[in-house]
């Protein structure tokens, strides 16, 4: 579903991402772990074609994202670390706005509100202007937008940052549900606990390199933290 082949991004000779090779199949939830500046966000930005790779290829459903940016974006949904929305519109209208852009015009009001239920946002809030929302509420609208897009792959850049533990937990459940429906997920995160809970695989990144990948079912929470710290150590 998502594939990186020798994917490299350099800024003035410094490699932000160094020859990443990665394949994420449908139903897989791949969590990228690593310190700030390890190359997690760069990886996601490359898949979104926000930046051009220095060399190598990022593919979505077998299509090169640089040559077919619009077609590949049809299949993915993106949740940034800080979901920012149109302040003068309500949550519901923002959802409609981005759904309209994504080409989904068939949603009824009830269906749209259904997405808010799924992400745990109160219906009253859906009718309020986003200008009055907390960060967590905006994050939930961002998740609802991704759900409504019915994407086959999700690109998540620390999506739960700023969510309370309960909301975070609900989000993990949601990811599991989506993964069981065949959605492939690439998630950058700092949350080891969450990665172990909702991920099927985790990858450790450091200085733009993917150091190691592990299957979460084969390790315990304590192991994950130990391995993470080992890799982060100089």
């Amino acid at each position, binding site marked *: 579903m998502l594939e990186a082949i020798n994917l490299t991004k350099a800024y003035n000779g410094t490699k932000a991402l160094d020859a990443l090779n990665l394949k994420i199949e449908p139903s897989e939830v791949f969590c990228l772990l690593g310190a700030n500046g390890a190359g997690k966000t760069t990886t996601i930005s490359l898949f979104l074609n926000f930046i051009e790779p220095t060399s190598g290829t990022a593919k979505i459903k077998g299509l090169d994202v640089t040559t077919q940016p*619009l077609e590949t974006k049809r299949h993915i949904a993106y949740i940034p670390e800080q979901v*920012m929305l149109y302040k003068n*519109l309500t949550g519901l209208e923002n959802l*409609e706005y981005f759904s*309209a*852009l994504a080409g989904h015009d068939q949603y009824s009001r009830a269906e749209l509100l259904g997405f808010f239920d799924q992400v745990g946002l109160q219906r009253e809030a859906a009718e309020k202007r986003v200008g009055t929302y907390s960060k967590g509420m905006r994050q939930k609208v*961002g998740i609802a937008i991704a759900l409504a897009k019915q994407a086959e792959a999700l690109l998540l850049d620390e999506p739960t940052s700023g969510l309370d533990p309960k909301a975070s937990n609900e989000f993990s459940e949601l990811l599991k549900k989506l993964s069981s429906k065949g959605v492939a997920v690439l998630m950058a995160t700092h949350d080891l606990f969450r990665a172990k809970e909702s991920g099927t695989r985790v990858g450790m990144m450091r200085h733009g390199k993917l150091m190691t990948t592990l299957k979460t079912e084969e390790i315990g929470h304590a192991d994950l933290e130990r391995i993470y710290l080992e890799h982060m150590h100089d």
Partner: protein
Amino acid sequence: MNWPRFLQLELKNFLAGRGVLVGLLVIFLAGLYAIEHGRRVIAAQQKVIAATPAMQQAHLEKMLAQHATPDPLNTLYYLNFFTTHEPSSYAPLSVGLRDVNPFHLKIRILTLEGQLYDSDISNPATLALGNFDLAFLLVFLYPLLIIAFTHNTLSSEQEQGIWPLLCSQPVAPQKILAVKACLRFLPIAAIWLLTLLVAWLWLQLPLDRRFGFITLISLAYLLFWLAVSWFVMSFQRSSNFNALSLLGVWLTLTILLPAALNVALATFLPVPEAFAVTVNQREGYHQQWDRPKAETMQRFFQRYPEYAAFQAPTDKFSWGWYYAAQHLGDEDAAESSARLRAKLERRQQWMRRLAWIVPTINAQVAFNQIAQTELDDHLAYLDSVRLFHEQVRKHFYPYLLCNDAPPPVNWAQLPRHQFRAETSGPHVPVSVLSLLVLSIGLTLWARGRR
């Protein structure tokens, strides 16, 4: 993608922005004021013009009462003939130079060149600022609203952090951006069209080609500013950078460049002829007092051989000789006067050429041409006064240039002046074209920059 819903929400979001509705309301109210202001300025002129025939009659009666005895022809020396430059029905939209140039002149049958350039007493500060008419509103203030609404089309999304989410959608960001910019522009264009509609109803403008031209030229001008904003947007800089650059462009195009070009025209095309006209006409006439009367009459008869039978008395004053001498002042000033006119026309020509590359001048000149309030229109009025002056002179020459006692003058039937030319400006389609070419050029340039 679902365009109708997207456009609807986009428009809703934009209109709910701070100051947007207020801005639109203010510019609409300013439009109403501009219409009324233009209407008042022109109505005041029309009032004077309408009162002219009665004023002429009262003046004639007064002069006859004072000067008709013993010689009724004595009256002619004091008698003013009133001429007026009637405004076109579109003049209230663009008062143009009708405030600087006189719209009425009274002339006597003395040397004409000394009488053509009189003007009314008016407040120079008011003249310097110009009139707050629709043309001013369009040329100066509408661009500011376009700048205010569109300068941050891209940058506000980037600064608020919405842009990445938009870019992750399967629609080209360029396309979304273009739609957003157009959508911000549309309410402004709509308010402008509404203002034109109000002007049409309020001023009861005749619905002809001119209304179409006004609509076209103004929309093309507004589009030009959208293109400028779009061009600045293509630098992908911050909202502050965009706003400041656009204000710089606005200041350059509305104030600095027109002022600079005005100075340039005055420097490269000076009119020393204006002074020459004054000197020549004065000397041309006054010299005649020192010359033998026969010589003066000889020159006069070259121009008007039909009166050659007249013999001016050499021993005493005669009106026939006096007006012939007056006319020679005009004859002597004819060449410099023609050169002055040609020079003014050359200035106009150059200004029109420069207008192709300076949209603000372009729009203003086009408005003035449609409203017929340009310098050309004033020159045409002066030409009509010249013709009328000759008509009056020729009306009285048979009485003045006769050897026997002249027949009684029929004071009830005197020549009357009328000048009102209602035509549509021929340069307007080219003006529209030049604005569109500039707009498209900027858009393509912006595209090439990405």
